[in-house]
């Protein structure tokens, strides 16, 4: 009640300000009149009495101000005054204001962008109801792949999950009556949408009850964006039959716009029931407990069950499975993790990188604060006379400080608003960006309320941070001293705090410059690194013959015809194919056993190897060197002994040495024995930063696959060649969906992370450099302008330009050198983190060290150029005349 009263009182007093002022006036006048009446009684003339009464009363304005303060409501009122006053002061120095707002807009904008991305990737849960209790089941390591029978057992035997759903990611050719095109899709268990609690946008979803054995549910559910782009928002799509890999599927409905599957970054075209896998992938494997092809299994934990309890429960099921199926399952340990970034596999690097980036952008903001803080301190020093005057006229120091803070916060709010505006534009562009033509990436980084709140908080904090720099200066101001001595002497050489700020700022900027140079060098090196294949002069044509209706025995002849067709193109040097390619969409793994092993259980595996099924001439077409042995021929087919080409890491893990390997045998899980006929050079297969991985190449005729990636080696112009390839393949069968790109373009995917890291760090480096330059410029310009008179006198008595420059700029340059050295050391330490993402990012690189030193020196030169010119042009006679 009391609080309400006081608020009401304050509000009324705010809104009835003029009325209150009038009343107050009247009250004080009536007091003076009453006093004058008394004085007249005691014998004074009226006029004299009124004069005396006014004098006795004292400073009316002061008391009125105090009354207003006591009556409350003045805080808002005087804040309003402060704002108006600050705006006026800022308008009077537009260059300062623009520089400050611009600096802050950059710094706060950078932070908003980084935070928004972090918010979208790391902080925000998956966009499904009750995302908190949604967990995916992982096996040791980052892997979540399970076999279908294991999934069914886990679903049936666990007691911790409401329901368990499974899904797989694959490519399918979809034909809606026009041009058949490949699309990335989800194969999901029937309970997928129900277990997640998703409702259709319209139409209906498929359910667990629709699963009645293999190929029993020929239905698809479209994702909203695919419906939008490929069906032009046609609501009549429900009930339509489309061809998926040449099999008829009925469209049931469309998923809601905000639902993009259960993996971040990825936007599937549509969802098909997993029981129809045979039609889509040409393979069923529903009974093979040893084939781990189900991409992820997840579900909502039952209410009250902790992840630890659920893990124990799952491990109990795992023990049972290991006992029941020792040959296929072996020991199984499960862990729970978030599904959105495939657990830690993508989650950890993304989290680490985003945290690092957030730290760096925080550093940028700190540098900006230091920068503006010293600008503010300089400004406050220049206005010390004004401050002194205001103090002398009875203003309180508190009020002056409040005005300084108002000014700082105003600047930071405007800067924050501009920065946020810029970052929203950038984020919108990022959200619709499709970096890979072949892969439906979904980067929803649009800012939400968290981002806006973050930017606002950041702006306020920034304002107070740099606004606090001149506080001590104001508190120390002695009006008498300042006014007596004039403006020049008082702010001489004692700028300790500002020196420290500048060194800190330069150091921060040097850290940023160092890390960006390290990252760029690393990227350049990894672009010219040895991948184990030749990136140049290579063209790829990608398809899966499944999508065009080829299966079984019809696949190999078609593949051979395709190779032959491409060989006829003029200028083509070599053509080959492989089912998957290194460094692209991920590789196939197989388990390899030593020849002597007879018990082919998972525990006895000698190595998990990346497996490529390739045609003859693959090594020449791909540009992979055969170290010894022979290439495959078209005679390595079903009727001849099984052969393989392996890589040095395979040799090391399974055979020990090269002489032992050639001609030797190894086994795979099916028990087949392969003879090693050749050794190809080591390459990179899954990622640029991976350690050497074992790999095996098998002849495509012995391990057939409908996945077909044709590799064409030619020095011809890529665009012309692409057209020629498309025509040649279309003539064979126009129903084959094709993706044609250069080998370099296909590297976009593995290079995406390093590129993004490099761009992000490069931008940060540039921002850091800009901040350092403006900081040094501000400091140098200020010190030159403060000491113009001194410099003039020095020149007048015969100082040489070199000495003048030393006097004017020596300090700034010294601070620059100290700051750069500190920053360089810190940057080198920080760069170790970088090595996790950018391959070969090593700071112990003379080019990096030299680059940083050169960059900082250039910055120093650039930033001190104008002040130096000004110092040298000082005309002593002009200066002396002025005073």
């Amino acid at each position: 009640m009391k609080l309400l009263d006081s608020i009401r009182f304050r509000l009324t007093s705010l809104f009835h300000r003029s009325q209150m002022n009038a009343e107050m006036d009247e009250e004080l006048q009536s007091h003076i009149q009453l006093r004058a009446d008394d004085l007249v009684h005691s014998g004074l003339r009226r006029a004299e009495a009124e004069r005396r009464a006014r004098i006795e009363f004292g400073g009316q304005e002061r008391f009125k101000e105090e009354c207003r303060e006591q009556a409350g409501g003045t805080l808002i009122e005087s804040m309003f005054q402060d704002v108006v006053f600050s705006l006026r002061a800022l308008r009077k120095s537009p260059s300062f204001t623009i520089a400050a707002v611009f600096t802050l807009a950059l710094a706060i904008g950078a932070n908003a962008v980084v935070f928004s991305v972090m918010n979208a990737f790391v902080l925000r849960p998956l966009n499904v109801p009750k995302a908190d209790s949604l967990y995916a089941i992982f096996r040791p390591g980052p892997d979540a792949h399970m076999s279908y029978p294991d999934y069914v057992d886990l679903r049936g035997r666990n007691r911790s999950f409401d329901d368990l759903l499974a899904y797989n990611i694959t490519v399918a050719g979809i034909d809606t009556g026009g041009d058949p095109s490949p699309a990335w899709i989800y194969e999901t268990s029937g309970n997928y949408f129900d277990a997640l609690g998703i409702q259709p946008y319209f139409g209906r979803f498929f359910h667990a009850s629709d699963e009645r054995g293999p190929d029993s549910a020929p239905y698809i559910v479209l994702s909203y964006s695919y419906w939008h782009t490929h069906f032009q928002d046609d609501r009549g799509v429900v009930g339509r039959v489309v061809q998926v890999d040449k099999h008829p599927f009925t469209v049931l409905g469309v998923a809601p716009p905000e639902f993009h599957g259960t993996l971040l970054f990825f936007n599937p075209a549509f969802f098909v029931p997993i029981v129809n896998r045979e039609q889509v992938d040409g393979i069923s494997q529903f009974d093979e407990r040893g084939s781990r092809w189900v991409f992820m299994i997840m579900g909502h934990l039952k209410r009250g069950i902790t992840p630890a309890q659920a893990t124990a429960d799952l491990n109990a099921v795992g023990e049972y499975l290991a006992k029941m199926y020792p040959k296929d399952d072996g020991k199984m340990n499960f862990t729970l993790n978030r599904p959105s970034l495939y657990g830690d596999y993508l989650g950890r690097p993304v989290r680490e990188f985003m945290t690092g980036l957030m730290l760096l952008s925080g550093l940028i903001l700190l540098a900006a604060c230091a920068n503006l803080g010293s600008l503010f301190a300089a400004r406050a020093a220049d206005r010390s006379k004004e401050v002194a005057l205001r103090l002398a006229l009875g203003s309180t120091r508190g009020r002056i400080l409040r005005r300084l803070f108002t000014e700082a916060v105003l600047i930071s709010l405007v800067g924050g608003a501009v920065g946020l505006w810029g970052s929203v534009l950038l984020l919108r562009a990022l959200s619709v960006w499709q970096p890979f033509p072949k892969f439906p990436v979904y980067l929803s980084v649009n800012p939400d309320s968290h981002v806006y709140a973050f930017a606002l908080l950041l702006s306020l904090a920034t304002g107070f941070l740099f606004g606090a720099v001149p506080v001590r200066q104001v508190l120390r101001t002695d009006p008498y001293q300042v006014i007596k001595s004039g403006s020049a002497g008082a702010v001489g050489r004692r700028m300790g705090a500002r020196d420290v700020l500048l060194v800190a700022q330069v150091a921060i900027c040097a850290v940023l410059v160092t890390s960006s140079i390290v990252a760029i060098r690393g990227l350049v090196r990894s672009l010219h690194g040895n991948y184990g294949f030749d990136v140049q002069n290579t063209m790829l044509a990608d398809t899966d013959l499944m999508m065009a209706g080829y299966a079984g025995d019809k696949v190999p002849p078609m593949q051979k015809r395709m190779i032959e067709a491409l060989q006829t193109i003029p200028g083509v040097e070599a053509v080959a194919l492989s089912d998957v390619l290194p460094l692209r969409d991920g590789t196939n793994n197989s388990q390899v056993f030593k020849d002597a092993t007879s018990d082919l259980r998972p525990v006895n595996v000698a190595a998990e190897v990346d497996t490529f099924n390739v045609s003859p001439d693959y090594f020449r077409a791909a540009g992979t060197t055969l170290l010894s042995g022979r290439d495959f021929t078209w005679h390595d087919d079903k009727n001849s002994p099984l052969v393989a080409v392996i890589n040095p890491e395979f040799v090391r893990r399974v055979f020990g040495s090269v002489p032992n390997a050639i001609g030797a045998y190894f086994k795979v899980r099916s028990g087949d024995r392969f003879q090693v006929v050749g050794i190809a050079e080591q390459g990179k297969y899954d990622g640029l930063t991976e350690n050497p991985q074992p790999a095996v190449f098998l002849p495509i005729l012995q391990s057939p696959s409908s996945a077909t990636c044709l590799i064409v080696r030619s020095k011809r112009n890529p665009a012309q060649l692409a057209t020629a390839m498309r025509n040649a393949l279309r003539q064979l069968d126009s129903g084959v969906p094709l993706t044609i790109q250069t080998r370099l373009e296909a590297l976009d995917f593995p290079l995406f992370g390093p590129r993004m890291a490099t761009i992000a760090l490069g931008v940060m480096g540039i921002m850091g450099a800009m901040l350092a330059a403006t900081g040094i410029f501000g400091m140098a310009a200020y010190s030159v302008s403060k000491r113009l008179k001194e410099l003039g006198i020095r020149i007048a008595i015969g100082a040489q330009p070199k000495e003048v420059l030393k006097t004017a700029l020596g300090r700034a340059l010294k601070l620059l050198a100290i700051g750069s050295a500190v920053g360089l050391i810190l940057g080198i330490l920080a760069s170790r983190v970088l090595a996790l993402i950018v391959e070969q990012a090593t700071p112990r690189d003379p080019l990096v060290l030299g680059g940083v030193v050169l960059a900082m020196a250039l910055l120093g030169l650039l930033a001190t150029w104008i002040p130096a010119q000004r110092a040298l042009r000082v005309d002593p006679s002009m200066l002396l005349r002025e005073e």
Partner: protein
Amino acid sequence: MVTDQAQLLPGTLDLLILRAVSLGPLHGYGILLRIGQISGNALLIEQGALYPGLFRLVRQGLLKTSWGTSENNRRAKFYELTTAGRKRLREETDNWNRLATAIGTALAARPEEV
């Protein structure tokens, strides 16, 4: 004249105002006169300094105001105690008396009593 008057202790102005008003509604000038009268003109109060005190007491809900006419027919703002003000005056008076007694005793203490 100035030299005989004592400086007010900080915080005592509020108490004096409450006391002055407790004897009947008064306008600002009247409060000054009343304080002078009841204190035997021994206290120095700058005339204008009274008003911030009055505004403070009004905000605290200890005084209420109304416009009226003074004895010599001038429009003036009159202050009177609220119930809360009356209660506060009692408390503050007790406080003051205790303090004054304590200080007086302390100052009157002779060496042999220690």
